[in-house]
Structure formats: C-alpha cells, structure tokens
C-alpha cells in the first residue's frame, strides 16, 4: 500500500510512472530544456536531470558521452540546478530530480546544495554512488528540506532490500539488471521476482531502470512495477539528432524525438 507520493505534492500518480533521464547541457543547456518539454509532452511524470561528471562510474558509454558533451559546455552541479527555473519558465511542470555523483555535492557542501535545490525548485535528488549506509546525514537533511532523496536498490542488495525499501522516499529506483546504465534487450525472471520483493517493503512507487530500450520492455515493466526509468535509450535518441541540431533543423529534430519517445512509452 503506497502511502507516500510527495515531490512537494507535484506527483499525484503512483502507477504507470514514466521517468526519463537527460543530461543537463547535452548537447546545450537550451536544448536540454527543449528535450525535457518533449518528454513531458510524451507523458513523463518525473524528470531525472543528470549532472555531468568527469568520472561517472555508474554509467555506461552512452551516458559518458553525453556527460562529455555537457562538460564541454561548462555544465556543472550548480548550473544544472539553475537550469530548473529555466525548465519551469519554458513550461515544465513535472517534478525534477537532480541526478548527481557525490563528489560535486561534497564540494558544494550540503547546506549550499539544499539551499540551491530549494531556491531553484528542484524536488528530488539521486546520488548513484551514495549507498544507504553512507547517506544517513543527507537523507535526514533532505527530509527536513522536503526534498525527495531517491534510493536505488539492486537484485544483489539481498537483506538490505528491506531496509532500503522501507526508508525510500519519492520513488525507489530498481536496478533491473546488474550493471551500469545501458540498453539491454531482455528482462529476466529474476528481475521480476526482485521487483516483487521490493514492492513488498516499499511505501513509495517502485520504478525500474537500467536497460529499458523498447516498448516491449516498457510494457513488461508496467505490468510488474509502478514506473519505468529510461536513460540511455533517450540519450541515444538525442545523439541521433545531433547532426540535425547542428545544422539548424531543430524543430524537425525535436518533433522526431517526441515521436520516438511516444512510440517507446505508448
């Protein structure tokens, strides 16, 4: 029974969530805004706004490439957070989760980090290299600031699944396949039984990510989980528009992107 939905009241659904991931600044901050709007148009419920990092050790090559493109545009944790009001201005209404590696947060400092999240209106935060055991302080702070601290859980989290799920906020991010982010073409029975186990202990929607790249995947996940997280596949779709974008065919590229996403999550 789901008791928490939160995101400062902005998330009202607890089922069939579509949670896309984009890298802030890929290929430019302006285009990130445009891609985010297409995602919202295609039905996104929460936006994961990735902060590019020099050493993204939980990411596969697709997202690494996106991070490199964004870093070349001088993107950073603070600039990514500051992109949130621009997203709002442009019409984005869904909650935004800042997806960042831990080190930039350490450098910024917890106080300033949460201050910035508040000032810029970001509703959630996800730190892929800050596991449950290392995150007690920041989870507490997030609670105080009414920011959803998203936890990840993996099939091999074993007895920790219960603990993580019970303390999860916003939604819980299930790593569907062992491995770094990327696209895979099948989903295993073990993954499904893992999702079931998470749901037993979780008070928040259970979303599944890592490797979802086709409408078949999406349908399958929907049957068993509360939400689907799509990262690499979206980055690849953006990547495939880079040439068009460079050649001034922006409208056409965004339209094509929207259609692809629509097909993916229909």
């Amino acid at each position, binding site marked *: 029974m789901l008791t928490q939905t939160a995101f400062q009241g902005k998330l009202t659904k607890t089922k069939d969530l579509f949670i896309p991931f984009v890298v802030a600044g890929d290929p430019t901050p302006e285009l990130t805004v445009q891609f985010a709007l297409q995602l919202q148009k295609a039905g996104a419920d929460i936006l994961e706004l990735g902060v590019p990092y020099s050493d993204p050790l*939980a990411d596969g090559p697709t997202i690494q490439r996106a991070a490199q493109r964004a870093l070349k545009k001088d993107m950073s944790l603070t600039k990514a957070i500051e992109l949130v009001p621009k997203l709002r201005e442009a019409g984005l209404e869904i909650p935004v989760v800042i997806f960042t590696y*831990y080190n930039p947060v350490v450098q910024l400092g917890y106080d300033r980090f949460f201050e910035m999240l508040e000032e810029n209106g970001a509703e959630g935060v996800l730190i892929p290299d800050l596991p449950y055991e290392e995150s007690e302080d920041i989870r507490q702070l997030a609670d105080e600031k009414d920011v959803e601290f998203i936890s990840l859980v993996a099939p091999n989290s074993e007895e920790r699944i219960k603990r993580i799920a019970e303390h999860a906020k916003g939604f819980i991010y299930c790593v569907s396949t*062992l491995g770094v982010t990327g696209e895979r073409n099948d989903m295993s029975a073990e993954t499904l039984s893992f999702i079931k186990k998470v749901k037993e202990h979780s008070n928040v929607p259970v979303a599944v990510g890592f490797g979802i790249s086709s409408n078949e995947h999406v349908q399958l996940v929907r049957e068993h989980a509360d939400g689907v997280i799509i990262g690499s596949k979206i980055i690849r779709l953006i990547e495939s528009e880079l040439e068009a974008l460079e050649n001034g065919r922006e409208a056409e590229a965004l339209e094509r992107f929207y259609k692809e996403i629509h097909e993916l999550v229909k």
Partner: protein
Amino acid sequence: GRFGDFGGKYVPETLMGPLQELEESLDQAMNDQAFLDEYHHVLKEYAGRPTSLSYADKLSDYLGGAKIYLKREDLNHTGAHKLNNAVGQGLLAKRMGKKKIIAETGAGQHGVASATVAAKFGLECKVFMGEEDIRRQELNVFRMKLLGAEVISVSSGNGTLKDATNEAIRYWVANCEDHFYLIGSVVGPHPYPRMVRDFQRVIGDESKKQFLEVEDELPDRIFACVGGGSNAMGIFYPFLEDSSELIGIEAAGKGIDTPEHAATLTKGTPGVIHGSMTYLMQDKNGQITEPYSISAGLDYPGIGPEHAHLFQSKQVRYESITDKEALDALKLLTEKEGIIPAIESAHALAQAYKEAKEMSPDETILINLSGRGDKDMATLMEHFQEEV
C-alpha cells in the same frame, strides 16, 4: 570502514553486496592461520621474500649525514612491491571460489602482478588499461598477454589510470557475481584500503625485524613515495605506534605551483574518488582533474584514505618532489650503489637525501625502494642519453 573522516564505500548500490561478501571472506581469511600460512609460503617460495635490507654505505658516505638503509622491494618477483598484494588478493579470490579476476593498471606494474598471480593460481584475468597507457607501455601490455591475461583498452576520458579504474569498476558492477576485482593500491571502497594495507604490511614487518637485527634500534625516519600509497602504507603501518618519523613523498611533477603535478595531499582537497572519501585533485565544481608525474605509478589524482587520515592527524609528514629531483636522485643511487630504482621510488630517495644531509651519522634512515627501474628505461634514456 573509516580512517577518521576518510574511507567509506561510495559505490553504486550493485557493488554493496559484493563488497560485503568480500569483507566477510576477508575477515574469515585473515583469521584463518592456514590462509595466512599459504600467503606467507607463496611470498617466500615464489616471490622471493623476505626482500633484503641493504645498507647504502657509499651513498651515506657521499651525503655525509645519516646512515641510509634501503628496503629492497625491487628484488620482489616482477620487480616491485605490487606482487605482495596481488598474491594476497589472488589467494582470497581462489578461497572465495572466484575463477575470474579483473584489475586496473596505469603503467602496467599492477597489471603484470595481477596477470602473474592469475597464471600462478589458474585464474582468468582481464586487465583494464587506458588506450594512451597501452600505447606508452607496449612492453608491459605484451608481458600481460604473454602471461595469459586479456588487456582491455579503455578509451573513455584521457585513456589513463583514472579512466581504466572507472572502467574496471563498471565492469565489476556488471559482472560482480563471478569476478573478483583485484585493486592495486590502498584505494577504492572499504575494505580495499585496509585489505591492501594488510597484504603490504609485510614490507614494514620485515623491515622492523631486519633493522633491529642490524642496528638494534628503529630507524629515526622512514621514507616512502605515495601515489595511491600502498608501498608507503605497507612500510609505515607496523611503525605507526613507534618513535620513527614517517615521511610520505608525493609527486610534485613540474612543480606544485604549476598545474602539472600529482601532489594530492599537498595541493588537493577532500572528496570522493573511486569509492572512497579521501583527498583528491579536483576543480571547483568537484570534477576530478588530470594529475601529472613523470612516474606513471604516482600519476593518480587520489590517494588512499588512510593516508588522508594520517595527513590530517599529522601522524605522517607528507612532502613532494619534482620530476627533476627524482631523476637526479635516481642517478645518484645508480652511481653510488649500483641499484637502478623505479622513478616512483626515486621520489622517496630525493626527499631522504635532503634530510639525510642535515642529520648526524648516528641517526638512521630507512627508505622503501618500492620497485626497480627496468620499466623506466625508455623515460631515463630520453632524459639522460646526453649525459651518460
């Protein structure tokens, strides 16, 4: 899993399970006399331990100060202290029933050590190495292949050690069920820094025994170079509670006032790298920056978390030495003692020389000669060809 404010496990959730399994197996192993006996047996009968403690008489006379002793890790099988740790982790992998190991490498020394124990213990071995390093270290790449290892070229980032480590961790995340990740230094998430230290402390344990035998007291100062810091932790650890002053030497590259150095403690700030809270070299946004040192083994933007703690608690003094000072120190040792040290180790030598001169002849110095210079010949030829 902490050393004061440092250490921890800053890793993707997927690795939390494997790290816990590792920690449990490690604790069991380290409390199992049979495991420890096998580890020491392999070190003695295969790696050639104990390594010698050499009194550098001509060098000491030349500098005219303290008596200088060298702990000769250059005599270890494969030419550096790296093997001690690889043997320990290799045996642990076997004990855990893992048939496949992965390792990261920069210049290739840890890659060779890993490939060596993989061959010796019958394990499959994948070594992750940056494509730029593969180009620069053709010989070590070939050596690993000859030993039966697969060398995986990493093209992300700048194609150097940092990127190879990232990629090894990624591969481990995806394949942690049957793979053992054999980290080469006192870095990475808990329990790696502790484990690697415990597999390297044999250096300090032997040194202490040998030093007491010849001098009947402990050395006044102990010097070791620090990249990730495993040779330094290895020799320092057994002396932490003793009177000996401990000095770790970082690579100042072209100078710590230039952007080209690897002096992590001297110039870096705390943060997270490769799963561990420690000091690292980063920009104001927390992006990790590229270090520089002539010595591939010190060319790392982080440092073991225990060093960060020993730095903060002032239990160890950290200094830095430039490329040029290290090369000069290398040349002096070669000419005076007939030992060509690794350029890494030459950083420790250079700082020791500076201090030895100011010390009295009844004081003593111990330097960890972490490896031999054979691997550095191409670099040395470039720098010294005209002089010699």
